[in-house]
């Protein structure tokens, strides 16, 4: 019973990691860069939701799509203004940019008088609701996260696997020059990717807000999502979710059964062990250059 309860908590937490990891993988698959700003985009998404709910006073079911759409637009603009000018430079430049974007985002939110330095709650209708099934409890907040994560993952997976645009995004990430030769609008797709990634981040932020509250540093949870993405295999969308679950459950169990302190580094031990045993993660492609 105890064990089951722990596993359930682990799954709930794991889905959160997976959801954020989904954003990393999305960007990686489509542009082969790693976005260190994903956590901050999530934070912005949560604040956008807060603004829509509290400041604009929109009803919940309107505020959520508004925040997501707003963040998508923001992502597109962000790409347009700071990422596009160096499109084509080595991926590492863009990684640096995302770190910079992260700083600016966190700083800017902090600067908002009497809001930025505070912690807020997002008034969701299902706040504090709990399902009780035969002694096992699970918060509705977590159920919502799990459901949304599964849906989003399936959707994105299909898009990358079957849609022309999805394939073109991957093509552009593998060989940008050839993508131009094929007439793939690399820039436009890049914008789309960032829009999408921001929207996914916003969804993550909104789902997370009732659980972790809304504050300028909430993006730090992204650091746990990295290991999740790696355990799953960085280029794989389902891998992100599975990786998240693995880490969530391992954390939860090790927090209970192992000595103090293991819970906090369990994720990192798992990822190191993984890299030794399966360097490409659970679902990562086994790449080998043919010469």
């Amino acid at each position: 019973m105890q064990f089951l309860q722990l596993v359930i908590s682990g799954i709930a937490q794991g889905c959160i990691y997976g959801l954020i990891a989904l954003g990393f993988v999305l960007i990686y698959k489509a542009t082969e860069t790693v976005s260190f700003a994903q956590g901050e985009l999530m934070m912005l998404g949560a604040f956008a939701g807060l603004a829509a709910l509290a400041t604009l006073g929109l009803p919940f079911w309107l505020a959520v799509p508004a925040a997501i759409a707003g963040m998508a637009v923001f992502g597109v603009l962000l790409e347009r203004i700071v990422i596009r000018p160096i499109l084509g430079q080595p991926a590492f430049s863009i990684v640096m940019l995302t770190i910079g974007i992260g700083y600016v985002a966190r700083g800017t939110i902090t600067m908002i008088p009497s809001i930025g330095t505070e912690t807020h709650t997002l008034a969701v209708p299902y706040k504090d609701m709990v399902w009780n099934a035969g002694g096992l409890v699970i918060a509705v907040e977590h159920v919502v996260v799990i459901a949304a994560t599964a849906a989003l993952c399936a959707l994105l997976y299909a898009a990358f696997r079957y849609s022309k645009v999805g394939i073109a995004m991957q093509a552009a990430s593998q060989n940008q020059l050839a993508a131009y030769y094929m007439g793939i609008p690399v820039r436009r797709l890049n914008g789309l990717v960032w829009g999408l990634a921001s929207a996914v981040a916003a969804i993550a932020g909104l789902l997370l807000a009732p659980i972790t509250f809304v504050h300028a540093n909430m993006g730090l949870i992204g650091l746990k999502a990295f290991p999740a993405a790696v355990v799953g295999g960085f280029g794989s969308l389902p891998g992100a979710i599975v990786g998240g679950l693995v880490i969530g459950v391992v954390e939860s169990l090790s927090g209970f059964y192992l000595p103090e302190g293991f819970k906090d580094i369990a994720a990192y031990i798992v990822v190191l062990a993984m890299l030794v045993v399966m360097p490409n993660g659970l679902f990562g492609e086994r790449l080998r250059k043919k010469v």
Partner: protein
Amino acid sequence: MRFLFKTSYEQDIRLARHGGHVFWYSLLAAALIAAPWAASEYLLAQMTQMLIYGVVGLGLMLLAGFTGLFSIGHAAFFGVGAYTQAVLTNAGWPFPAAMAVAAALSALVGVVVGLPALRVKGIYLGIATLAFGFIVEEGFARWEKVTGGNAGLTVGAPKAFGWAADTGTSFYFVCLATAVLATLACLNLLRSPTGRAFVAIRDSEISAQSMGIHLAYYKTLSFALSAALAGLGGALYGHQIRFLSPDQFNIVQSIDLLLMVVIGGLGSLHGAFLGAIFLIGLPQAIGLFKDLLPDAIGQAPGLKAVIYGAVLIAFVLFEPMGLYGRWLKVRTWFQLFPFYRRGMFRRQKSFQKSERLR
């Protein structure tokens, strides 16, 4: 304009390629030696810190800039060096001996991290080092007997054989000497087979291998050297900050270190020091600048992060080659003076290619 006529192979491998180099570097050396008398105490303290971070930067540059392995956990090595130094000097060891051990121990830890690095690349390596960084940080916190855990550990001034570097000036010279020696060692490595093997691995593992380069050995070596330099820097850092706590060696520190070399300019040793100047100098510059702003903005919390991030973004956008790239342009401008053309360094369209297959 300068033309170089090559008359012997010696000329190619000399560190100073021509008279100009000799002149300018001598001038720099003179300035650095005179600094304690010319600079204010505060400036000297900053210069000391720049030198310390420069040493760490050299190590990271060797790893990221020349071997092409990115580490997001370098603070761990930095911390191992700092703690080792603290423990040993507190136990009465002379500081040069302690520094040697600090470097060696960090190198050893570097070897341990280097092992997974043999199998993974790119982002996977980044995450592996990140994970490793977290684990080491946790280790600092848990191993209370030695590190003092979260309660921290105080470090004294460097002492050896009856002499103590307990003033700003004497400590500055300790750091300067370390930095100069570390730089020379790196320069030597880079003009010899070892350094070339690093570069070969960076550019093409498969053909490096077919040239007889043992990938595992050289990658591990690169990690070890890089970690040793980080440890050396950490040892000095310990003396400088005089109080160590685990959270000083966290992910933020690691990212700062990485930013430092990237902003300095990957693939040049100059970049390590230019990056250190940037990393230490920028917050000070922001501090000065924000006093000029109206209070509503200037005193708002978060401003520093915004400016820091914005400067970083501007750098990547306008100077992807880093500070060293900017310096090259300036230098070329002077060398070519009347003939410099604007298009000379015009950014070409460039195209990203998958690094997953390298």
